[in-house]
C-alpha cells in the first residue's frame, strides 16, 4: 500500500493527476491533511532530486542572513525540505527590518565570511554589486551543469528578472546588455490601492479611477467619514517615500527620474509631466492625507488602514493584505484595486519592491549557497510559501495559476484582479545609479517642503533638479 501512496503523490507532483483526484484518493486511503502534506513534501523532494545532484554538497553547513518578514517565516517553515533534499545543514540569523540593511552592509563591507546568502532588495544591489560584494548569479543560471533542469528561470516574471540585473554602469537599463544578475527574485509587491470597503460604502464612494478622481474620493472620506482621513501615503524623509505609490503614479504620468544622454545623467524631476503629477499629489496630501504625513513610513500607512484611521492607501498591495488579517480592527473590510493614476492611461505602471536572495562574494561555500538560492526561489518552495504561508506576492507566474493559491487569494476582494492588471508593466522604474539613496532622500525632502507650503511645487522641483544635477556632476555622473 505504501508504494501505491507514494506513486499517487509522485503522480501529482509530476502533474499526471490533479489536486481533486489526489485528495479523493488520499481520503480513500484514510490519509489525513497533515500526513498528506508530509507525503506531498517527500514526493516533491524526490522529484527535485531525480534530475539534479542535490546531494553534491552533502554535509556542508550554510548560514544565511534574513530580515524578519513573512517570506523568511515561510522559508524557515519549509527548511527541512531543503535539508532532506541536499543533506546540508542551514542556520540563519534574523534581524528586524529597521536594522537589517545596516547588518548586511556591515557584513559585506567587512568581507565577512559568516553569511553565504542573504535577503536583499534590488536597490541595495546597486551598491553591493558594483562594489564586488556579490556573486553574479548568471555564472550559475547560464551553466547547465549547475542549474537544476526544472528550475524554470523563465517562469519568473520578466519584469522582476530584469529589475534584479544591472551592468553597474550608471544610467544603463536594468536587465540591459551586459547586465549582471545580482540577485534572484523571491517575493515582491506592486504598488496599488488598498481601500476600506466599509468606509467607502458609508461615504458612498467607489475605488478611484485615476489621480484626479482619487483626490475627490479622498476629500469626501475626510469630510464625511466621521474621523478617518482620505488617503494614506508615505512621507518620511527617505527613499522609501518615493518608491511606492508616488513613483508608480509619477511614471503613469510620463515622469522620469533622469534623462540619460551620452552616458551622463540629468535630473528630470522638473519636467512638465512631473510638475503636473506632483501638483496633484501634493494637493491630495494637503487636503486628505494624514496629519503627521511627514513622519509616515510603511508602518504608519499600514497601521492606519488596519485600524480604520484611513479610507485607503496607495502603497504596496501586500501591505493591504497584511492589514487584512491578524488582530487588525478592519480585517475582512479591505478590498484592492489596480490604479492607473493618469486619466489618459488604462494600465497601471507599478513600481515594485522585490525581496530577493543574493550570494555573498566572500562565502566559502558558493556552490552550496547556490543550491540553497535555487531551492528557495524554485517552484516547489514558493508554492509551499504561497499556499501554506503568507508568501504573497509569488514571483512565478505558474503559482498565480495554482488553484489552491487562487482559492486562498480569492478571499481578498480584488487582489488577484489588481495583480493581473498590473503584472505586465510591473518593474523597477528608477534609473539605477550609485547615488540612489541620497538623491531619493532629497526628493522626499523636497516633497515635504512642498506639502508644508514652504515652496511652490514648480519652484521646489526646479530647485530639486538643480541640486541633484550639481550632485551628479560632482560625482562624475552628470
Amino acid at each position, binding site marked *: 500500500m505504501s508504494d501505491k501512496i507514494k506513486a499517487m503523490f509522485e503522480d501529482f507532483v509530476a502533474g499526471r493527476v490533479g489536486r481533486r483526484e489526489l485528495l479523493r484518493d488520499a481520503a480513500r486511503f484514510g490519509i489525513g491533511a497533515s500526513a498528506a502534506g508530509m507525503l506531498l513534501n517527500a514526493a516533491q523532494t524526490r522529484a527535485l532530486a531525480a534530475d539534479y545532484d542535490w546531494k553534491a554538497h552533502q554535509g556542508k553547513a550554510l548560514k544565511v542572513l534574513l530580515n*524578519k*518578514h*513573512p517570506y523568511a*517565516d515561510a522559508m524557515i517553515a519549509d527548511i527541512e525540505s531543503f535539508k532532506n533534499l541536499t543533506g546540508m545543514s542551514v542556520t540563519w*540569523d*534574523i*534581524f*528586524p*527590518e*529597521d*536594522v537589517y540593511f*545596516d*547588518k548586511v552592509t*556591515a557584513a559585506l*563591507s*567587512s*568581507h*565577512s*565570511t*559568516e553569511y553565504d546568502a542573504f535577503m536583499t532588495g534590488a536597490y541595495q544591489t546597486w551598491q553591493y554589486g558594483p562594489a564586488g560584494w556579490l556573486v553574479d548569479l548568471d555564472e550559475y543560471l547560464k551553466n547547465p551543469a549547475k542549474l537544476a533542469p526544472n528550475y524554470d528561470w523563465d517562469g519568473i516574471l520578466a519584469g522582476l528578472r530584469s529589475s534584479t540585473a544591472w551592468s553597474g554602469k550608471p544610467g544603463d537599463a536594468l536587465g540591459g546588455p551586459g547586465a549582471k544578475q545580482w540577485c534572484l527574485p523571491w517575493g515582491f509587491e506592486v504598488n496599488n490601492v488598498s481601500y476600506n470597503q466599509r468606509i467607502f460604502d458609508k461615504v458612498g464612494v467607489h475605488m478611484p479611477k485615476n489621480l484626479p478622481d482619487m483626490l475627490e474620493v479622498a476629500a469626501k472620506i475626510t469630510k464625511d467619514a466621521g*474621523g478617518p482621513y482620505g488617503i494614506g501615503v508615505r512621507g518620511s524623509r527617505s527613499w522609501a517615500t518615493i518608491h511606492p505609490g508616488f513613483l508608480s503614479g509619477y511614471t503613469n504620468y510620463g515622469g522620469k527620474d533622469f534623462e540619460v544622454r551620452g552616458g551622463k545623467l540629468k535630473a528630470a524631476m522638473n519636467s512638465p509631466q512631473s510638475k503636473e503629477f506632483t501638483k496633484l499629489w501634493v494637493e491630495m496630501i494637503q487636503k486628505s492625507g494624514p496629519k503627521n504625513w511627514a513622519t509616515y513610513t*510603511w*508602518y504608519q500607512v*499600514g*497601521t492606519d488602514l*488596519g*485600524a*480604520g*484611521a484611513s479610507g485607503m492607501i496607495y502603497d504596496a498591495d*501586500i*501591505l493591504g493584505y*497584511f*492589514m487584512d*488579517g*491578524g*488582530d*487588525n*480592527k478592519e*480585517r475582512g473590510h479591505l478590498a484592492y484595486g489596480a490604479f492607473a493614476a493618469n486619466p489618459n492611461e488604462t494600465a497601471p505602471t507599478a513600481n515594485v519592491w522585490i525581496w530577493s536572495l543574493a550570494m555573498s562574494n566572500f562565502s566559502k561555500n558558493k556552490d552550496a549557497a547556490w543550491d540553497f538560492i535555487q531551492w528557495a526561489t524554485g517552484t516547489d518552495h514558493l508554492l509551499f510559501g504561497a499556499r501554506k504561508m*503568507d508568501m504573497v506576492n509569488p514571483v512565478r507566474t505558474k503559482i498565480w495559476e495554482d488553484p489552491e493559491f487562487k482559492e486562498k487569494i480569492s478571499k481578498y476582494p480584488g487582489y488577484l484582479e489588481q495583480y493581473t492588471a498590473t503584472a505586465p508593466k510591473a518593474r523597477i522604474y528608477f534609473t539605477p545609479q550609485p547615488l540612489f539613496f541620497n538623491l531619493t532622500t532629497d526628493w522626499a525632502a523636497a516633497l515635504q517642503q512642498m506639502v508644508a507650503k514652504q515652496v511652490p511645487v514648480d519652484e521646489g522641483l526646479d530647485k530639486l533638479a538643480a541640486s541633484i544635477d550639481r550632485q551628479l556632476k560632482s560625482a562624475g555622473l552628470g
Partner: protein
Amino acid sequence: MARSDVRAAGLPRFLRAFALVLVLIFFLFPIAWIFLMSFQSNEQILRIPPHLLFTPTLMNYRALISGKLITAAGSLDLPFMRNLGNSALLSAASVALSLLLGVPAAYAFARFRFRLGENIAFTLLSFRFAPPLLVLLPLSLYFQELGLANTYVGLIWVYQLICLPLILWIVRSYFEDLSPDVEYAYRVDGHSWWRAFTRIAIPLAGPGIAAAGLLAFIFAWNNFVFALILASADKQPVTVGALAFVTASGIQYGQIAAAIVLSILPTLALALYAQRWLVEGLSLGAVKG
C-alpha cells in the same frame, strides 16, 4: 488676621503642589502611558480615540516570557528573554572588567606622575568620541582573524570602549579629591601602596566608584550598534531585540510597551538601590575644584 496668614501660607503651598503635579505629569506621562499600553492588546491600543479605561490583559508579558506570541495571524517566535539575558550579561561583565582595570588605572593617574601619563589618559577618553561605525568596521575584520567575532568575550572587550573611559575618568577625579595624607600615614606604618590602595583609597572612593559603575552599566545597557555589527542574532541585546516587534506585517505595540517595561526594570532597580551613592558620588565629583 490669623485666618488671612493661613490663607497666605496655604496659597503658595497649593501652587507649589500644583506645579509639582504638572511637572510630574509632564515627565512621567510617557512612561505611565507605556505602562498602560503594556496591559492592552494591539486592537485596544489602536482604538480611535484612545481609551483610558480598558480590560487589562497579561498577554504581552506572557508572550515575551514564554517566547511565543499566538495571534489570529499565526505564531511568532520572540527571543526577547534571551535578548534581555544578553544585555544583562554583556553590561554586567563589561562593567566588572572595566572596574577591575579602570579603578587601579584611575588611582595611578591620580596619585602618580609618570611619562606620557596624561597622553594615555586622553587617548582612553578619546575612545568615547570616536563614531562607533568608524571603529567597528575595521574591528570586525580583526575580530574575524582573531576568532573573536560573534563571541561574548569579543563583545565584552569592545564594550570597554564605553565603560573603561567613563569609569577611569570619573573615578580618577574622586581619587584626586581624597587627601593623600591618610594614605601616606598608613604607608608610614609600614604598609605597601597596594594595601593603602585597597584598604584606604577604595573604601573612601566607594560612592564615586559605585556612581561610575552604575553610569557605565546604563551606557552599556543602552548600547545598540556594537553587538548588531559584531555578533549573530542569538547574542543581540535588548535594544536590538525590541525592534523585532516592528515587522512588515504590523507593529506589535503591546509587546513593545511590555518589552520597554521589562527592559528598564533591571537598570531602574539598580538605580534605586544605588541612588544614595549615586547622588552623593555625582555631587562630590561635581564640586571638585
